[in-house]
């Protein structure tokens, strides 16, 4: 494999569905963590309910719209359920409760007695056929791209166009929200919660709104991941996915409108390029090992970013996340 094709493949992942779905999921997290300073360490739980909402709709023969509605309703319910009791507490409590509840959701989905609803450890398959996600695809069949490595087929193009379209809508929404008075309150809570309270703002309600809206965006990303893959299984929704999204948010710049988008593209480009290089330099490396090396690098990257460049690519040092407390 040539260097050029390694980078072409990495770019393909970065601007393809992987990058788009991560940008969407990270946008939700950015609203919570970047703008409001909420340490939601169980974002993957929102993705999970979005994905399972879609899968359960497919399993029961309902339409794709019911699938979206189920996922969104579940995400709102989850956000309220977790948010109302814990947003009154300190940040570390929110972190522990969210990571625990995401894990509860995964374990419940995985358990044998849940099989009638979630398919247990096997999950639910056959989503694209039942829900017709690819039916409105107007792109003629065939391959599009440059050279041999940088190629998308028509299905890939459809899912990536759809998802990037959603990313654009969500990004515009967030842009409009954070420059509104509402967004200014969120940022003031992030900088100094007591000051915001002293000014008469009902801090818990603002935090709750941000938490639920961010979770809802996460659920949308989960639903799209389910639609693109055509199946849902519990092994995917592990805590590591949340941590990857944190890396994306901080890499791009927490508390910036375009941060998650830039972060997701750069994240996937680096990750995939490293994977290609590893497999090229070290021929007998297994997928398990290269996956572990990639994640180890992600962890180191997250630490280094947080320590040396917490404002990421787009953020300004002046407006750093979570204030200076």
């Amino acid at each position, binding site marked *: 494999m040539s260097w050029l094709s390694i980078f072409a493949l990495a770019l393909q992942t970065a601007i393809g569905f992987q990058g788009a779905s991560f940008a969407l999921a990270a946008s939700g997290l950015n609203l919570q963590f970047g703008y409001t*300073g909420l*340490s939601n*360490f169980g974002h993957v739980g929102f993705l999970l309910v979005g994905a399972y909402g879609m899968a359960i709709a497919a399993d029961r023969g309902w339409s794709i719209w019911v699938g979206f509605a189920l996922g969104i309703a579940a995400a709102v319910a989850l956000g309220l*359920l977790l948010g*109302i*009791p*814990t*947003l*009154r*507490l*300190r*940040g*570390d409590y929110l*972190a*522990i*409760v969210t*990571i*625990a509840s995401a*894990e*509860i959701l995964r*374990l*419940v989905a*995985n*358990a*044998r*007695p*849940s099989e009638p*609803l979630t398919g247990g450890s096997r999950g639910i398959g056959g989503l694209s056929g039942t829900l017709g996600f690819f039916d409105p695809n107007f792109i003629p069949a065939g391959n599009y791209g440059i050279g041999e490595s940088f190629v998308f087929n028509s299905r890939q193009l459809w899912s990536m166009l759809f998802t990037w379209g959603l990313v654009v809508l969500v990004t515009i929404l967030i842009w409009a929200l954070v420059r509104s008075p509402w967004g200014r309150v969120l940022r003031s809570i992030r900088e100094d*919660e007591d000051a915001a309270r002293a000014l008469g703002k*009902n*801090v*818990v*309600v603002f935090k709750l709104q941000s938490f639920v809206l961010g979770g809802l965006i996460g659920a949308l990303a989960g639903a799209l991941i389910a639609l693109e893959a055509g199946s849902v299984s519990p092994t995917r929704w592990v805590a*590591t996915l949340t*941590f990857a999204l*944190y*890396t994306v948010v*901080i890499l791009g710049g927490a508390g910036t409108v375009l941060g998650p988008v830039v972060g997701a593209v750069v994240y996937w480009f680096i990750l995939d390029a490293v994977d290609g290089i590893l497999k090229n330099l070290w021929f007998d490396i297994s997928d*398990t*090992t290269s996956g*572990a*090396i*990639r*994640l*180890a*690098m*992600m*962890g*180191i*990257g*997250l*630490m*280094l970013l*947080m*320590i040396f460049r*917490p404002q990421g690519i787009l953020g300004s040092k002046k407006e750093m*996340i*979570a*204030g*200076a407390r």
Partner: protein
Amino acid sequence: MDLPQLLRSPRVLLLLVALGVLWPATQAAAQGGGGVSDAEAARCAFTKAEAIDANGGPLGPSIWGRLCQVIDGEVRYAEGAEVTVLRDGEEVGSDTTDAGGVFVVTIDGNGTFQVRLDPETLPKDFSLTDEARARLDNVRVNLGDQQVVFRLGEDSRGQRDFADYATTVAKGARLGLILAVAAVGLSLVYGVTGLTNFAHAELVTLGAIAAYVANDAGVPFWLSVPIGVAAGALFGFGNDRLLWRPLRRRRMALLSMMVVSIGLSTALRNGFQVAFGPAGKRYTASSGQTERAYGPFRLTPNDLLIIGVCVVVLVGMTLLLRKTRLGTAIRAVADNPDLAASSGIAVDRIVSVVWVLAGGLAALGGILYGLTINVKFDMGFILLLSLFAAVVLGGLGNAYGAVLGALVIGIVQETSGLFVDTAYKFVVALLVLIVVLLVRPQGILGQRERFG
């Protein structure tokens, strides 16, 4: 009822959360789940090595298994029962079980198969736990050969005797004590620095792996334990000196430090996987353990060892914190670092000591946990949420609270298997955590303060 009012009645919310999450669990319990007790299932466990022995040679592409039932407390094997394997309804092959209850049906490659056991051919006294499970319609073979299990014997759920309950509680206490040993350090570190250290789980894994490496190199197990603990203590010390102390000097926000600890945890865990391999491994001391009756408890010698070591260590920690100058200093720093510093306590030195203690204790917890399961790169991470549950339950930053919380979590986690499906074991522990946060966020022993 508007939102602020709702906020003032946490019990309403508590009920909602509990109902929401427990509903599937109670459903499962109502359906009865099916299956013989775990202890009996364990006595009938069958490994590939045993199958190769019974077959008198390699298995080749095949579907294999053993028909085993515990009758009157004795393990017996069903001879002469007929097992048929089909692919897409076409018969692939069949076998009749030998005197050891073993069947091996040769197949023509990987794929999805249907396996049938003819219940009529089962010998007298043998019966299927669930008649419907005589026909397995979705047996996937991915790696050449595959074991299938037909559960035999009465469904002994709900027929447990007192010893079963007593043993489960004892195993819960064992897990709780291990959690306590590992959690004390997490709580102390939180107490003196305010850091919620998500990488604490990796200190647990590191100790277990270090002891395994020593043990594997020929060092006897009893000597591997101090080696592992020393490695953990050293690593804890290094963690503080090289990472956390510089970050504290930079006055990094606690939320940011939490994110750094997540990065560290991810990096270490995956680093362990690369270095140690993804497979689970066992200490030499793990083999040859059989359960014996000690009063109403059925425990292995290792279980007793674990419980003994934990109790000694926890009593030692309590004495250290209560009776020594060092312990007093640690508690003073945890209570109020500024006040402690102005009283002439070298806060940085105390923090270093706490990290050494945390690393050593976490390592010990990891080694003892590794005795009960396999030593694996993510064993600490699996414990992490139980550790947090223990620490929060007892009151963040309170070492005695962590011990108490750990015992509660351990016993709740193990005994919950008696009431709900064992698949929900971890869920129950995490649920306890959430419920506690709803009604008493400061934990059992924590001091009431204004949160948020």
